[in-house]
């Protein structure tokens, strides 16, 4: 496991200072952060909060894979990703991503890459709650293309990756 990548699913308030501390290093001249916040409106509806549902194992696995990919594209970068699991009111922090690099350009680009890929690939779902008392699960990106690329075994060989 790469010691410069820390990913987690959190059921408690995400600590931004911890994110920055993890990616900080004397050789890193830049840190870029992304903080996802629950806003009070969506598609004309007044939102009171969001329930985040997460497949913890697979989400954490996808966070690590995405950070490792980014590290391959932007060598020398360090990553912290924490995604909230549970119920948040408006203003609550749903995700914190921190990326550090020797120079600023890589931090900006890598941080953007990580959040965009998480939105498309991580098994996380949002249920919005509205003032009128209703709730809706939001539509999202199908993981069918991930299934097509999957190398998970046939179910008989017992290996994580099927090679036969």
């Amino acid at each position, binding site marked *: 496991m790469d010691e410069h990548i820390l990913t987690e699913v959190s059921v408690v308030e995400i600590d931004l200072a911890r994110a920055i501390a993890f990616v900080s290093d004397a050789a890193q001249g830049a840190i870029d952060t992304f903080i*996802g916040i629950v806003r009070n409106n969506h598609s004309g509806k007044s939102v009171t909060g969001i329930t*985040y*549902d*997460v*497949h913890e*194992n*697979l*989400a954490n*696995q996808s966070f690590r894979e995405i950070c490792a990919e980014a590290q391959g594209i932007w060598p020398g970068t360090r990553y912290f990703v924490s*995604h909230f699991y549970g119920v948040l009111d408006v203003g609550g922090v*749903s*995700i914190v991503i921190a990326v550090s690099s020797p120079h600023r350009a890589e931090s900006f680009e890598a941080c953007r890459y990580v*959040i965009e890929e*998480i*939105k*498309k*690939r*991580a*098994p*996380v*779902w*949002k*249920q919005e709650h509205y003032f009128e008392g209703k709730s809706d*699960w*939001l*539509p*999202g*990106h*199908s*993981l*069918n293309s*991930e*299934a*097509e690329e*999957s190398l*998970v075994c*046939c*179910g*008989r060989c017992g290996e*994580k990756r099927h090679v036969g």
Partner: protein
Amino acid sequence: MEEIKVSIRCFGMFRQFGNEIDVSILANSSVDDIKGAIVRHLGEKYKEIVGSSVLASDSGILPEEYIVYAPVELSILPPVCGG
């Protein structure tokens, strides 16, 4: 042919059916067959959302041709929207 039980952990919009549902399939069925059994369990109106969902074990997303030989617990993952 032997019939086996597959427990499906529910996520996202599938939570409305509980944390888990059970379906019965024939041994040696594919993921595609299991998705068909889920549609029969939930009703035809969910055919589209089941079709755009994937099944996963705890180690990864399963391809459509993945074959299930024995009782197992899987997860159904509808389209995602994290962040």
